[in-house]
Structure formats: structure tokens, C-alpha cells
């Protein structure tokens, strides 16, 4: 799922993961007034129906986009539910309960038909946009088809073009009169019914329907790249103003009907997002009470971490969930000499995993050293260690050097490293990697980019990567939905490489991996499907295109001003759609 950054998939238990049933009573722990350490991981802290107050979010960069059809950060997939309703969503409750995918705009989970080649959804008839117009199935169709044009909307996964028929549809922006509503893979027999036509059966389609790309967009109001400045709201809040790079303000949407949207709440009377803040400043203000939420949700920085963990009162206001992310670095296969697998393996051996772990916060707040691509919470995970990550976490320069000889670069080589400069932990990790690779003769130059445009303009643009010889690129990833396909597809499938907003940044195009993914998608039986996870994982690690760092934990600070706080396991951070103020 949402990758880079903060998506917390963490399918905690296999049993809970694929239950699509309407949730029965989820076992919410008894809530306390402001909780103790980790109490928001398993239960709701400070439940309340009190209305009023301003929710202030702080972000060290900018969102990749506020357009629900153009975003791929976990925190945005979380945040958009404040102003949009995708077809399906994840149940708003803590613990394993929060991994269930439930209907949002749809009345019920989709129904497969025609031997699994169609999926039919009915949408709720009385949902309105912020201007009072009723949402129809055509708006959902338009929302999906507009994501096909990646020159306008570069971010986001590409499941729809891959799964549905009519993959060559160019999108509704070019040649608008001809192409608008022209995606034949989606049909709308009536204003409340929408049918998706697939190329092959795909059992997990309800998860695909939970992606914000299905949130309805009225065609008449779509301004393409400018739509993000004021998306038409179907959620509890609507955009009041968006000062680019500075601040977003949301106010309550009077046309929102809470009966149609049980997973979101309209408690605060205003939502403010402050952009481009200094990351440590965010932590300071959070602890001080000037801010209520750190938007990226990947955990506090080093200074605040030390403060929080050394003070019992502050520690009681924090949570340290396993976020379901993997922090890692892509190794690009097109930038020479990394096109040779042995040069890539040299990097795997030489990297000092302990120092990388320290950069993210050590074992307690950063996470365990990773030796596989899939974190333990992905269904079908199996542990293995090809490059001594757990046996020699300090790195093995000797082995690295022999790999270098094998790839024809016995004295080493130079390449560039890309990372997000506004995320201090990633900056530290990049520097740690640089220091670890130097003794092996691999000299890297560091290039920092802002998180908000990292995927759309820099690391996610293969042309840019090649032109600037960026061989190693940092990132983070969690599964788009609880199983191995939802984790691996967008980062390792050769078909997932796109010219901008790319997440297969290694540009891996291994026929073995592609085949395994294809087989996995076509397997209907869950157990059989999960068996593919470790096979794909092993092959990807053999290709040495990913350098895993840690299975992430995030130390989150829980502002005492908040009510209804709990960690939504799917996102690995607090559920932004449920928050209120005391």
C-alpha cells in the first residue's frame, strides 16, 4: 500500500485479513481519559462525541497531491476520507478490526459475476457533493478513467489499467469530446450501478475498490492538474482554502449525511494543515500543544523521541505501533554499473544495517533489521537472509569486494543516492549508507529532494533517474492491501513501470517475478495465493534490487487535546477520519 512513507498495512493476523463481512461488534478496549503508552494501538483513547475545536496538522513537506486520484502516500489515503468517499474503505476501528474492508460509497461489497470477470457495485442513492448535486455512478467511472492519463495525474497505483479491459484508454483529457466517459471497461447501466470488466478474475477486487482513485469526481468540475486546489467533497469536510505550499483549510460540509458515511466523523469545526514546516519544529509544537497531529505519521524525530522516552508523563502519551512499513532503498537496474547483479549484491553486503537501524531510531523506535522485502505482517511471509543482514548487521566489506570483482569493478564505482531531504531519519540513513559503502570502494554522492515531489518529479521519473545517475534511491512501502500481491505488485512488477509517479523505482523487469505475480493474481484460493509471497520475495532479493533496512515501527505522539484517537492498523498511524477535540 501506500508506499513511501506512511502506509501501514500490517495485516496482523491471517484470519482477520480477508473478512469482508459487515463488522460485528469489534472488541474495542475500554478507553481511558488520555491513555497510557501504546493504549491507542489496541483501543480508542478519549472517545467522545463532543463537537468543536480546530484540528491542526503539521507536514514537513507537502502532500504529493490532495486530488484523491493523484496521491499515493499513506497519510493522504488516510486524510482524503475527510473530504471524499471511495467505493470501499477500511473499517474505522482499532486493532485487527481495522483491516476489514467495508463499503463506503457502495451499499455493499462488490459482487463478482460472469466467472469473476465482472464486479458490480451499487452506490448509495442519497450521497451528495458539497454543492448539493447527487453522486452518480458516472462520477465514479469518471474518477477512475481520469487516472489513466499519467501526464496529468502521475501519482497513484496502476491497478485499474492492468486489471480491467481496455488498458489502452488514453484518459479523458486529450481529445475530451471523444474520450470523456470513453473507458469501455467500466459500464454504468443506471445512476446507482457501476460494473467493472476485468481481463482475468481477481479475487481481491474489493481491496482495489478501496483505493481513493474510486472517490467520485464530477466531470464538469474537473480542472485536471488544478483539481487538487478544490476537490469536490463527498465527505464530512470541504476545502475552504488552499494556499499552495503553505496551508490548507477545511470546513464542515453541510451536504454530508453522516448516515451514509459511518467511517468518518464531523467533530472538529475546522481542520487546518500547515505545510513545509521543519520536522523537529512539528514535534516541538506537538508536545507543546500548538499542533494536534503530525500528518506524515511516520513517528517523531530523534530529539522528540529522546524527550518522550525519558519522561514517564510524555511516554504515557505516545504509541509505538509496528506500522507495517518497510524502510528500504531501491537499487536501480538501469544506471550503470548497477545493471550487473553482482554490483548490486556488493551494496547489499557492504551496507551497515545497524547504522541504518540507528538512523531510524534503533530497535525500539525504528524497527527490527530487515532481511526480506515483505515485512512479517504480510500474509505468506517467510524469513530468509541472503546477504547476512541479521548475521552480520555491521556489513561485510570483504564479501562486497568479492562481488565487485565479480561484476568487473574491483576498485569500486561511483553513483548517486536520492532521498527525501525534509525527513531527518532518511537523511541520516543516506549518510550512514554513504559511510558504509566507502570502505568497499563504492563512492556515492547524496542528492536530497522534497517529499512532496519525490515521486512525481525526481525519483519516480525514470528519465530523471537515468540522467542524474541515481543508482540508490530511498523509500518506504507498505502493502496496498493485506496480501503479497498488494505488497509486491507496484514495486516489482515490470508492467508497473511508468514515466512519472513510478514506484517500481528499481525498474525491475524480471520475467520470473512478472510470471509469479500474474499467477498470484489469477489464484482464487487464499492459501495458495499466499504461498506466492515468499517465492516472489526470494526472487526479488536474489535480483538484489531492494536493500531492506528495517521493519518499521513508528513512535507517535498522541496529543492530549485529541479525542477518539486510535491507530488504524491499515495505515499504521492514527485514523484521521475519526479524530475530534476534547
Amino acid at each position, binding site marked *: 500500500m501506500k508506499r513511501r512513507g506512511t502506509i501501514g498495512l500490517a495485516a496482523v493476523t491471517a484470519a482477520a485479513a480477508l473478512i469482508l463481512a459487515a463488522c460485528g461488534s469489534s472488541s474495542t478496549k475500554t478507553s481511558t481519559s488520555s491513555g497510557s503508552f501504546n493504549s491507542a494501538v489496541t483501543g480508542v483513547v478519549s472517545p467522545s462525541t463532543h463537537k468543536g475545536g480546530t484540528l491542526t496538522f503539521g507536514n514537513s513537506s507537502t502532500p504529493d497531491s490532495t486530488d484523491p486520484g493523484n496521491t499515493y502516500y499513506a497519510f493522504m489515503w488516510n486524510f482524503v476520507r475527510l473530504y471524499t468517499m471511495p467505493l470501499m474503505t477500511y473499517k474505522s476501528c482499532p486493532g485487527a478490526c481495522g483491516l476489514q474492508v467495508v463499503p463506503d460509497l457502495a451499499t455493499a461489497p462488490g459482487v463478482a459475476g460472469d466467472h469473476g470477470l465482472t464486479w458490480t457495485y451499487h452506490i448509495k442513492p442519497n450521497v451528495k457533493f458539497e454543492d448539493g448535486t447527487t453522486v452518480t455512478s458516472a462520477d465514479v467511472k469518471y474518477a477512475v478513467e481520469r487516472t489513466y492519463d499519467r501526464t496529468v495525474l502521475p501519482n497513484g497505483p496502476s491497478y485499474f489499467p492492468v486489471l480491467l479491459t481496455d488498458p489502452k484508454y488514453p484518459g479523458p483529457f486529450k481529445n475530451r469530446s471523444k474520450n470523456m466517459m470513453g473507458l469501455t471497461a467500466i459500464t454504468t447501466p443506471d445512476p446507482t450501478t457501476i460494473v467493472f470488466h476485468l481481463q482475468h478474475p481477481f479475487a481481491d477486487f474489493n481491496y482495489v475498490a478501496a483505493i481513493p482513485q474510486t472517490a467520485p469526481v464530477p466531470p464538469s468540475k474537473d480542472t485536471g492538474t488544478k483539481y487538487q486546489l478544490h476537490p469536490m467533497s463527498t465527505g464530512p469536510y470541504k476545502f475552504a482554502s488552499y494556499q499552495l505550499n503553505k496551508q490548507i483549510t477545511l470546513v464542515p460540509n453541510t451536504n454530508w449525511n453522516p448516515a451514509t458515511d459511518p467511517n468518518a466523523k464531523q467533530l472538529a469545526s475546522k481542520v487546518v494543515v500547515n505545510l513545509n514546516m521543519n520536522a523537529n519544529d512539528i514535534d516541538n509544537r506537538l508536545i507543546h500543544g*500548538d499542533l494536534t497531529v503530525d500528518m506524515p505519521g511516520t513517528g517523531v524525530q530523534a530529539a522528540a523521541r529522546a524527550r518522550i522516552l525519558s519522561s514517564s508523563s510524555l511516554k504515557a502519551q505516545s504509541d509505538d505501533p509496528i506500522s507495517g512499513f518497510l524502510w528500504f532503498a531501491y537499487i536501480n537496474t538501469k544506471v550503470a554499473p548497477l545493471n550487473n547483479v553482482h554490483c548490486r549484491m556488493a551494496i547489499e553486503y557492504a551496507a551497515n544495517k545497524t547504522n541504518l537501524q540507528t538512523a531510524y531510531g534503533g530497535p525500539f523506535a525504528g524497527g527490527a533489521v530487515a532481511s526480506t522485502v515483505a515485512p512479517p505482517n504480510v500474509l505468506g511471509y517467510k524469513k530468509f537472509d541472503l546477504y547476512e543482514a541479521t548475521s552480520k548487521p555491521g556489513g561485510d566489506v570483504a564479501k562486497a569486494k568479492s562481488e565487485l570483482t565479480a561484476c568487473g569493478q574491483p576498485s569500486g564505482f561511483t553513483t548517486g543516492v536520492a532521498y527525501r531531504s525534509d525527513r531527518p531519519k532518511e537523511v541520516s540513513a543516506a549518510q550512514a549508507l554513504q559511510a558504509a559503502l566507502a570502505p568497499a570502494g563504492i563512492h556515492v554522492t547524496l542528492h536530497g529532494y522534497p517529499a512532496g515531489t519525490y515521486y512525481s518529479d525526481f525519483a519516480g*521519473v525514470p528519465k530523471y533517474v537515468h540522467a542524474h545517475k541515481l543508482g540508490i534511491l530511498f523509500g518506504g512501502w507498505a502493502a496496498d492491501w493485506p496480501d503479497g500481491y498488494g505488497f509486491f505488485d507496484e514495486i516489482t512488477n515490470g508492467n508497473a513501470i511508468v514515466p512519472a509517479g513510478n514506484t517500481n523505482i528499481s525498474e525491475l523487469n524480471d520475467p520470473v517475478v512478472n510470471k509469479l505475480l500474474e499467477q498470484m493474481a489469477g489464484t482464487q484460493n487464499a492459501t495458495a495465493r499466499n504461498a506466492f509471497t515468499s517465492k516472489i520475495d526470494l526472487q526479488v532479493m536474489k535480483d538484489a534490487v531492494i536493500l531492506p533496512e528495517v521493519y518499521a515501527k513508528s513512535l507517535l505522539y498522541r496529543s492530549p487535546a485529541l479525542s477518539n484517537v486510535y491507530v488504524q492498523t491499515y495505515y499504521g498511524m492514527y485514523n484521521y477520519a475519526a479524530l475530534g477535540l476534547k
Partner: protein
Amino acid sequence: MFAFIIRRLIATVLLLIVVSMITFAIFFLVPRLAGQNSYQLASQYVGRNPTRSAILQVEQRLGLNAPIYLQYGRFLRGIVVGAHFNSGTSTAYCPPPCFGYSFKNQQPVWPMMISDVPVTASLAAGAAILWLSGGVAIGVVSALRRGTLFDRFSMGVALAGVSLPIFFTGLISLALFSYKWPIFPNVQYVEITQNPLLWARNLVLPWITLAFLYAALYARLTRAGMLETMSEDYIRTARAKGLPERTVIVKHGLRAALTPIVTIFGMDLGLLLGGAVLTENTFGLHGLGQFTIQAIQQQDLPEILGVTMLAAFFIVVANLVVDILYAVVDPRVRH
């Protein structure tokens, strides 16, 4: 006096043109000299997902392969009349004054800059007033009480002040007076039109940080100038005439000592802007300084060019104001 102002105005306009030419040349020539061709330069201007055709289009539209004087002419024309930019999917109009069009943000540069100007202007103006009045006052008192504890102490502090980096003092003041002792909590820019008291309150720490360095400088300068002036003969004469000490100091001594201060202040406006950039960064204020830094991080060339031009223009105009004030203070200059 009127003739003087007119002469200075003309000189200022000429100066603006020269400054803009040099800035423009640096932005378009230096990359050329550094080995970039116009295609590479265009790819730095174009927005996300640069396809080859988009880059070529921008190259065409901005005329990056045209001779430099043509490009400059187009730029000037944009400032006066406005320009159209083909952003790939549509054509955008950039109204005058058009300082360029940011393809990455799909917006003209001028409105983005203008929204940041009040922050930087508040910061710079407030700090300038503080440091001039504070620095001069301390310098005068130190000169008059030469050798006393006050003199030694203030000059010592002044020396420390000019030796510490701004971001250092900024951080210390933030840590002490905002977080540890909440005297100035939650430093965030509030518009003066919204809440003047809060506006001032939130700017006190940044003002003091920015002013501290320069107040120290000016205190030293004023002191030196006062000491020199006060030992002149005409001061003795004024005292001998029986004028009250205050008149002697202010009307005769200070006035003479001030003229080099004003001259130097004009030269220091560039430093003022630099200091403002650092202070904005330390306190998280969204002004022109932060705008510049973000433009660099985004590698958004039109924004970088726009803000540099604006900064240079600001200095030139401010120098004009200082010159006119100087002429008011010292009639000899007006010849």
C-alpha cells in the same frame, strides 16, 4: 531638492535595468557556460513528468534557444505587459507584472511571491527600526560614558553579537523564550490586518534575533563616530557658547556622527535580506527567504529567477529611499 529626487529616480530606473540584465544573464548564461544546452535548461523549467515534446515546447515557448538579448526583451515585456505560457494541457495567462511562470506549481511566480512579501517586509522593517534605534542609542551612551562599566559591557556584548551566527542566536532565543519559558509561544506569522497585537507579539523574537547582530555593529560604529565627532573643535565651541549639553550632543554631535551610519545602512540592505532569510528559516516563517529555499529544493528555475529579481529590485528601491532620507538629513548632498 526636487531636482535631486528626479535625478535619483532616473538613476534608480537605470540601475534596475542593469541589475535585471545581470541577473538574467547569470541565470541564462552561467548554465550555458557550465555546459548545459537549452534542452537541458528547458527540462529544468518544465513541470512534472517531462516528456520530450513538453520540454521542446517549453524550449520553444521560452525561446531558450534564442539569443540572450531576445530572451531578455521577452522577459522585460512580460513584466510590463504580461505573457502567455503553454503549459502542455492549456495556455495560461500570466498577468503583468509577470516575473515568470512556474510550470511545476502551474502558477505565475508573482502572486506566489507577493503573498510572502508582507512576512519578509514585516520582519525586515521591524528589525531595521530596532537595530538602528537600539544600536545608535547604545553607541551614543557608550561614547558619552566612555570607559565606564556600561561602555565596556555593551561593547563586549556588541562584539559577541557580531561574532555569533544569526541562526545560533535565533535558536537559543526560540528554545529559551518560546519553549522553555512560554513568553512568546507559538511563533507563527499573523497578518497585521487580522490582529496587530498578535502580529507584533509573534515577531518580537525574530526581530530581536535579526536586530541583535546589526545593532551590535551599529553600536560599535556609532560609538566610534561619536567619539571622533565629540572631540572636534566645533563641539567645544558649542559648549563654550553655553548651549545645553543635550543640544550639543543631539544637534551637533549626533547629526554629524549619523551621516556615515546612514551611508552604511544603505550598503547593508543586502545583508538585511540575507539575515531575514536565515531568521525566517529558524522561526519557520513563510517569507521570501523560505520561498527561495523551497524553490531551490524543487529545482524550480522560474521561481528562483523571480525571487532573485525581486530581491535585487527591493534593494535598489530601498537604497533610493535611504538616499532621499540622507539628503534630508545632510543638505550638502543635494548639490
